[in-house]
């Protein structure tokens, strides 16, 4: 039997409750939580969908580390180790392991949308090459688990949700910024409303990403460079003035 300590509570507070679970071969933490739910606590709240690391619903903190419960095997822990499961800290608790992540959806809605260039051919299609799409394809691997938001100290410790969009939403913006067909300019949004300057490149987000997206190096730093170029490079500014080209 393995001892699980699971947070039970609501917005108004709560605490850790102990449950014993018999581990079976290959069991993941989400299985254990489901076993507790089915046999001991039917009202234990948890989000999940695919149980295969593809939907990003079952994010939580396992022994303090932000993880997907469905991809965390119990065999990763010593047989006598207590496994503590708590909700993501960067978001308000709704109940038990379920947090209110609606803020992410609000931010996403405000990111300037995809604006493709005019089609390359009269039939309305474009040509793009694999080497061009590979970078934004990396960002599209994002499963919106929000673990990177959870671990980001700007959000987690300093609670700057009003001023900083967080790594997940920067990745979202990067999809379109680096999309070969896109012509929208998101630099002003990223600098002001998105607060990209708050990121000081500690790379915690990259480490925690279950999809192994190189969030800091491939998404955030190039976006920072674009924003900086737009604002502080006098040659680029002159070039824009002369040519009228935004990017």
């Amino acid at each position, binding site marked *: 039997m393995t001892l699980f300590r699971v947070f039970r509570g609501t917005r108004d507070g709560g605490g850790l409750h102990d449950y014993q679970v018999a581990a079976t071969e*290959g*069991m993941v933490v989400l*299985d254990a939580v489901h076993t507790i739910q*089915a046999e001991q606590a039917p009202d234990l709240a948890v989000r999940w969908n695919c149980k295969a*690391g593809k939907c990003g619903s079952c994010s939580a903190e396992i022994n303090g580390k932000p993880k997907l419960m469905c991809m965390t095997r119990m065999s990763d822990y010593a047989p006598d180790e207590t496994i503590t499961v708590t909700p993501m800290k960067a978001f308000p608790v709704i109940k038990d392991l379920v947090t209110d992540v609606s803020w992410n959806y609000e931010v996403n*809605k405000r990111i300037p949308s995809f604006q493709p260039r005019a089609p390359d051919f009269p039939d309305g299609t474009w040509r793009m090459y694999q080497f061009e*799409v590979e970078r*934004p394809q990396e960002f599209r*691997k994002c499963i919106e688990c929000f673990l990177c938001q959870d671990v980001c100290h700007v959000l987690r410790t300093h609670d700057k949700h009003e001023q900083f969009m967080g790594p997940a939403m920067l990745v979202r913006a990067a999809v379109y910024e680096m999309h070969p067909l*896109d012509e929208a300019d998101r630099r002003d949004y990223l600098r002001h409303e998105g607060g990209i300057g708050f990121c000081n490149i500690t790379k915690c987000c990259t480490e925690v990403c279950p999809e192994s997206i190189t969030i800091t190096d491939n998404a955030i730093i190039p976006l920072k460079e674009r924003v900086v170029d737009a604002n502080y490079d006098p040659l680029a500014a002159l070039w824009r003035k002369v040519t009228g080209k935004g990017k």
Partner: protein
Amino acid sequence: MAASDLKSHTYDVVVIGAGGAGLRAAIEASALKAKVALVCKSLLGKAHTVMAEGGAAAALGNVMGEDNWRVHFRDTMRGGKMHNNWRMAQIHAQEAPDRINELEAWGALFDRTPDGRINQRPFGGHTYSRLAHVGDRTGLEMIRVLQDKGVHSGIDVHMECTIVKLFVVGGKVAGALGYFRETGRFVLFKTSAIVLATGGIGKAWQITSNSWEYTGDGHALAYEAGAELIDMEFVQFHPTGMVWPPSVRGILVTEGVRGEGGVLKNSTGERFMFRYMPDMFKGDYADTEAESDAWVKGDRTKNRRPPELLTRDVVAKAITKEIAEGRGTEHGGVVLDIASKQSPDYIKKKLPSMYHQFKELAHVDITKDPMEIGPTTHYVMGGVKVDAETQESTVPGLYAAGEVGGGMHGANRLGGNSLSDLLVFGRRAGQYAAGKRGAAPAIPDAEVEQAMREALEPFEHAGENPFAVQSALQAIMQRDAGIIRDKAGLENALAELEKLKGRARKVGVTGSREYNPGWHTAIDLQSLLIVSEATARAALERTESRGGHTRSDHPDPDEKQAREQIVIKKEGGRMAVRREVQPPIPADLMALIKESV
């Protein structure tokens, strides 16, 4: 609670379900200036579409220029064992390319051909390389693109909201009642047009690739509203699900593994699929390993496809037979091997999430070692009977698109035809639902109050744990209404389901209404019971084997039943079953089906 105190919204169109079909319907209705609500059981972007792996089938002809809608139509009809609604299969094949190109215009990043077009991969039952894809995470790409398009289209999204009842007044759609998971509070949507896009019923079986959401809500809501269900006996058991360790049993292994050259072997090391060629497909597939290998290596015009790429029903039954006859693996599966056919770099590039999934969950490196796989419940071909052009059900104002709609796939769905189905018919449902806008009939307060009372009943008494009843239901369906069925088993299933109805009425839940999974499961049980009974009744009625429906006591197809449909409808409080003959396939289309390519 009185209905007058209830939070209510009025919309032109209410779309229930936010996978590909629901999102596409909502986008279309919104583009036609309808005021649209999109209601989803989970968070936005987590619907089942997100798990779709292999790709979306569309005869773009980017990889093999010989492809066109006629061949796609032919493949779909033959794959569906001639049971499909021919008009839906035709519309689907004709419109799928436009729907895929449209996704690109909305920001989708499909894998590319060397000349910069959308790349296409081969898949089971498709004559040509036809599946637009992004590695093995095509569904994620599609849902993200539709999600972003949707949220910038002014659609109101109601997340984590489960619909429990549709209201039909004077024979017309009037609205829907739901509850929010977060608060447990009810909400009333008043509308004259509802699009069901709730997906399937796979949670009725033990071994399934489907998530907790897939409890047949849309099928059950439509049935209770008086709509007809068709083809409920046709359930697709996907040939390749994970089998070990136990905790991952049923999780999908994409058909893309076989599309990229993976082979199936039994415990003696034999590539057994060569022995399972149905007459209908003789001549279309390679009959030697040498020819299969040459096809995998890229010479696709001179060589025929490997038999591992036969349609899903054929492959699933072959695997089941190998296991039953003692040639299975240690954990009751067979072997799927790509390591011996492709390089590690190629596998990681083309099948990254499969690599990740086996590495993390089974400690198997698929670039070095074979996978152990077995069939898993995956998809229901059956669903709400709809008009092929408009997707309207037999209840005016009620539409269904995607998996919850019936007819398109006949007795067996081809891989890749689901992602294109939901785009083609999602769009059509949204378009016609938007055209239906108008004043909705008033819903009598008493009906709303009764629906709320019924939903809250599990709180009223102590009773059995709803999870225990759900698990009993899954065990019955797995045993008696699984891949291989017979009369005695199906009759037993119906008797057992009858007992479960009694148990389900008496389940009790504890705790508050806020985010209470016990309560949610108690409510979902009502839908599961309806779809399970519908499946068992239809399976008992169809006395032949065809596509996804196999009867050991009627092992052969019966051509007289090929175009007969089992129709289920609620009549006088009971589930009535009848047969209906589908309209004949027009001669010009019949000629396409018979044509060899």
